């Protein structure tokens, strides 16, 4: 499986907005409002139905209440961070196969492979990232092209 931060698909910009993932629910967890807004804009444009949560705890609440096809989360957030949120998801039988894309402003200071295995991530993207690539990667994830990594947590 390819764990490249940059998905190979370069088709996203050619596709007509709105038909990439019609009606699929994506949950964006991001404590920076400005960043959350631009992600919502891009996902909505691509045809996703987007919800934004400001931290892990709010996201967890939403996950309990609704069903999402994809989770895009920041790592460092107040109250409940991305790490804890992912652990909870992978420990939950209903959510264990939910595709997760992790966005992080951390670079070399995190161990990418170790984190991928530990949290059962589908993809890690580093900030600053390209919104186009994020949307394309999200489309691939929901299409099952990027496999969910079995969580290694006990």
């Amino acid at each position, binding site marked *: 499986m390819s764990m490249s931060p940059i998905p190979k698909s370069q088709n996203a910009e050619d596709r007509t907005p709105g038909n990439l993932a019609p009606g699929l629910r994506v949950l964006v967890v991001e404590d*920076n409002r*400005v960043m959350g807004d631009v992600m919502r804009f891009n996902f909505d444009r691509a045809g996703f139905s987007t919800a934004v949560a400001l931290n892990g705890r709010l996201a967890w609440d939403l996950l309990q209440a609704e069903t999402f096809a994809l989770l895009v989360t920041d790592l460092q957030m107040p109250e409940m961070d991305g790490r804890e949120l992912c652990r909870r998801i992978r420990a939950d039988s209903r959510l264990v196969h939910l595709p997760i894309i992790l966005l992080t402003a951390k670079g070399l200071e995190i161990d990418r492979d170790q984190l991928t295995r530990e949290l059962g991530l589908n993809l890690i993207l580093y900030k600053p990232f390209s919104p186009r690539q994020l949307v394309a990667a999200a489309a691939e994830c929901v299409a099952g092209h990027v496999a969910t990594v079995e969580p290694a947590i006990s």
Partner: protein
Amino acid sequence: MPAPVSHISLVRRLLGHYLMCGLGAVAALGLGLALSTSGVFGAHRTHSFLEQVEQTAQAIAADETDHGGEQVQLLVEQLGAAETVAYCAVVSADGTYRAHSCPARVGQKCDAPVPASRSGIHRLERIENGRHVVLPIDEYWVSLKAGTAECGTLLVGTHVARETGFMARLADHAPTIMLLPVAILLLGGQMLRCTARQSSKIEEQLLQLSSSPASAATIDRLPEINPTASGWNRLVARVTNQATEANLAASLSKALGGVREQKAEKVLNKLSDGIALSDQYGRVLFANRSFSTLLGIAAERISESTVFELLFENEGASDELPVSDEVKSQLSQETLPVVFELPRGTDGVAGVLRVARQPLIDEGGQSLTHIWQIRDISQQKLAEQARSDFVNSAAHELRTPLANIKAYAETLALDDVTDLESQKGFLNIINSEATRLARFVDELLNISSLECGSLSLNRQQTDTLRLLNEAIEKVRPQVQQKGLEFTSVIPPKLPELSIDKDKVAAALVNLLGNAVKYTPEGGKVSLHVAQTPTELAVSVEDTGIGMSAQDLSKICQKFFRSEDPRVRDIPGSGIGLSLVQEVARSHGGRLEVHSELNKGSKFTLFIPLS
């Protein structure tokens, strides 16, 4: 004090003894020679005289027989004329002088009885005035025979020469005189021996000194029979004293050495690093106090253990040492220096020890000892961690606005954002994110100027008013951008301060910047400067978000940032306040903070006037 000695040198003395004895012996021999010579001559004289006497006796006898004795008186007188003859006579058988050198006495009765043996030599002895005297006259008696009939006795008295008498008496002691040279030689030998014996003893001791180590040799005193001996004894005494002094000096230096060693040990014990010395089996030969303290082991136990036991003791049952395989293999090679880090849990607090092993090989390459040095690098590790945290935090804070700028710019570049309002909104966001980024870079620089050389102050006379105004000018753009109300109350006259201008300025900018950062739009920020007799108080007050009491206690810790989302939304490193506090402290001042959540904060920086 030297004895007043007028002394003849040893050589002269020996020569004198030698000459004296030699000459004495020669003289004695000469005397003997003279004696024997005179004896020989005496004997010769006596022999010829006796021959003359004999001839006279024969002539008398012949005359008696042939001529009836008419020539007798003449013959006697002839003999009596001889130099050595005192008198001369012929005694007839009836005891009268038939002839005499003194013609008057012819016919007279012989005064001395005719000896029984009618021939030979007789020493004349008389009793005169009741005293027995020996006359210096020898008397010769010769029997006269006319044919077979005895016809009288020839009597000849000869003078015994005085010298001859002395010599004769001396000759009586001839055996003694013969012994004299021997005795003189023996005496001389004895004198030489006496003189040489001391020299020999001195030489003996000197030889002993030369052949044995100075300390082992003992020097004996000599019996003080002469100045040489007393001089030697004095020398011995001095040397002995010196030896004693040398001993004293040695023991003193030993004691001093002990003191030096103690000092060295004191110094070693004062070191914060642990120092230990181990032999080739790892047994501890020496360990200073810090060694046991750092390892958390009672000092008494150190000497009973090996260094490995001590270092890895806390790891307990598991044989796995908390060091890498590389270090293990290095440790097994005893001649290699090794440096490694040893994690240690002491009193529940994780610590890290840096352990260095340096081999110490003596010249022979025989015995191998190791110097171990352990240092507590927990603080260093914490500092490294803090630095790494800071870099990570700064990187995160830089990437966040960058990510926004990139995301919005790329989105804007898409063809389908045609709505002018959206475009304007996006551009505004990009602008504000860029501003935020620029501000954070400023803050980093500010922090860097605070941190740079934080241990040393570059104090200089500083115009305080100007310093304050410059700080205000630095934050004014942000104040205006946020639409904050800014007031400052500064006395018109402020004293010059001897401070590190750059650091204090950075601290002020940091305080003002914080106030601006954490005060929502429409709030107030004020700067209030007051002077007391001893210090200058610079207060920065805001009507911002404030802090909880819990956060307040931590704000001066490095890298602390509140969990408050309003704080989290604002980029920051969590290092500024800790540096402001450091600046205050290094200037001998302090930082006071009052804050109330949701109401605002007041930071006051106190700086001593002198």
